[in-house]
């Protein structure tokens, strides 16, 4: 168990900068999830922490030790790979003990750890099997077992659920969460799946193009995204964004957005307002109103998604509850409360101080 601190971490391949000077602190026993679109550098960051990719610039510390130049095994980490990466020619027990053999650990201690991990992950009956005789979920449990027996300071997970089918993904996700509570170890988990990120994480790091877009608790990210990238990345369906410009009478509005007041008015003329689909209502009341034409309605039962388009061509998605849903072709006016609006300045950064005043 240990803290982890990253300072000015940079990774370049020639001229291509993959990571651009990251700073990040991870608490002891924390479950940290790195999330972002593919190519954002999250896997590279994980591999650098593991010691599988070299550090171009900056420092990685695990506990008090600077680990930049240490071999992966010397960093006291264990990694679980997306492809499981089990040794195909060894049975489950050997897969778990293979690495321990080289650490000079006594046989009774190895046996104790393996039987404990096997019990924890319900692998006891599978210890003699080869990986090819196991299902995907069992393989992933073996891969996790191989990490557990090392009793590492930090667990690293690289998209461990991506190769599993949907049902297994949910149950394995729950198991990983339980495991974290049980082991109380520091865990760093890379995924591109925001459900995994939201459900597992103590804190989420959203990455974009080699930089950290925001670090925060799942609900903080959801309810107070720091910038446009996080706003549109977290949440499904994605947040609706509207371009806003000054309107007559010290008000603001857009092509389909009714003029409204802002206090204090944000600096700069153009900005954006974001509303999550579940905060849009059909009754056209509320502080913020937008007119659109319904193009498609997806009825899921408890909720329905109304996909609509404003007259300037912007797509709007509203999540509606109950039976009261519009028909395709209906001209509707969506409304939202002032407290549910997210305001972003011209640079895409959140403006917290502005208060929306209702139209009229």
């Amino acid at each position, binding site marked *: 168990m240990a803290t982890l601190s990253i300072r000015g971490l940079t990774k370049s391949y020639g001229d291509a900068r993959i990571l651009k000077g990251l700073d990040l602190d991870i608490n002891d026993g924390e479950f940290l999830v790195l999330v972002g679109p593919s190519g954002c550098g999250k896997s590279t960051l994980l*591999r650098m922490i*593991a*010691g*599988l990719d070299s550090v171009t610039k900056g420092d990685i510390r695990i506990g008090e030790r600077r680990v930049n130049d240490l*071999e*992966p*095994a*010397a960093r006291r*980490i*264990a*990694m679980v*790979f*997306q*492809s*499981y*990466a*089990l*040794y*195909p*020619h060894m049975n489950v027990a050997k897969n778990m003990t*293979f*690495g321990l053999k*080289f*650490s000079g650990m006594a046989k009774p201690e190895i046996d104790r750890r393996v039987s404990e991990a096997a019990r924890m992950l319900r692998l006891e009956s599978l210890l003699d099997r080869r990986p090819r005789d196991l299902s995907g979920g069992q393989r992933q449990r073996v891969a996790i077992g*191989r990490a557990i027996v*090392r009793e590492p300071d930090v667990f690293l997970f690289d998209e461990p659920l991506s190769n599993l089918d949907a049902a297994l993904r949910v149950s394995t996700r729950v198991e990983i969460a339980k495991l974290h509570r049980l082991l109380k170890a520091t865990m760093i988990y890379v995924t591109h799946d925001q459900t995994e990120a939201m459900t597992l994480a103590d804190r989420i790091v959203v990455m974009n193009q080699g930089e950290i877009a925001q670090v925060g608790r799942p609900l903080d990210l959801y309810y107070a995204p720091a910038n446009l990238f996080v706003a549109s990345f977290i949440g499904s369906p994605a947040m609706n964004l509207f371009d806003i410009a000054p309107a007559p009478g010290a008000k603001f509005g857009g092509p389909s957005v009714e003029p409204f007041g802002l206090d204090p008015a944000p600096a700069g003329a153009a900005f954006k307002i974001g509303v999550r689909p579940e905060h849009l209502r059909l009754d056209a009341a509320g502080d913020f109103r937008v007119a659109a034409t319904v193009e498609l309605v997806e009825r899921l039962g408890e909720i329905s998604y109304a996909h609509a388009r404003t007259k300037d061509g912007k797509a709007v998605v509203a999540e509606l509850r109950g039976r009261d849903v519009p028909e395709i072709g209906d001209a509707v006016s969506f409304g939202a409360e002032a407290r549910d609006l997210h305001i972003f300045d011209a640079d895409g950064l959140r403006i917290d101080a502005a208060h929306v005043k209702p139209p009229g």
Partner: protein
Amino acid sequence: MRRAGVHAVLIAYSLLAVAPILLVVMNSFKARNAIFGSPLALPGPDSFSLIGYSKVFRSAHVFTWFANSLIVTLGAMVLTLLFGAMAAWALTEYRLRWTHALALYLSIGIMVPIRLGSIAILTMMRAAGLNDTLTALILVYIAQGLPMAIFILSEFIQQIPQDLRDAARCDGVPEIRIFFEVVAPLLRPALATVAVFTIVPIWNDLWFPLILTSSESTHTITLGVQQFLGQYITDWNSVLAALSMAILPVVAIYVIFSRQLISGLTAGAVK
């Protein structure tokens, strides 16, 4: 129709390839008169004879030659596989400054036949005092087999998932053990393929035993058989019997490795 055409071509080619071998084996079981009288006939009750085999078994040197062939072939094979796999691993896994140049240098070995260097090899072996030894043959055959072995094994090593090597590194497995205990076991089909490619030309080689060994005690079987060929009289019974026996080990190796060989040859093509 097209399949039939393809099969006809393949069958014709197989017959062409097998016919001489069949002729050798068939005639090795016939008396001398029958070999010349009707070379294409199967051994019958009146032409059947084991005289060739009994002569070969009585000749003191045949077993030495067989043993020499085995020592040279297996020795060269084992070392070619070992060094070939290690070199292939080093060239694919570690990106060092000289990796590219080294790989290029080795690939020249595939293109330039080693026999071009015969005279230089002969002088070198003389200078090293290895003339007329099996060691000399083994060394030459390693050099002969290594470029192709490295080339084929590199391809296979690249197909072993990167995650597996990374997992082993995170597990604290030393690099040398990663190679021997994680990579090498997964290379088995490839090693079988390379083994066959290496063994057959060595076993059948006449050239290097001819120029590098002079005494009968260091002859290999292919060279030894030449002893039965005289300028005026050739002991065809013995020649054919010895050649038939010399075919056996190669066939045996093929049978043993064939299953692995098929998976080895197709693995690269299918994926």
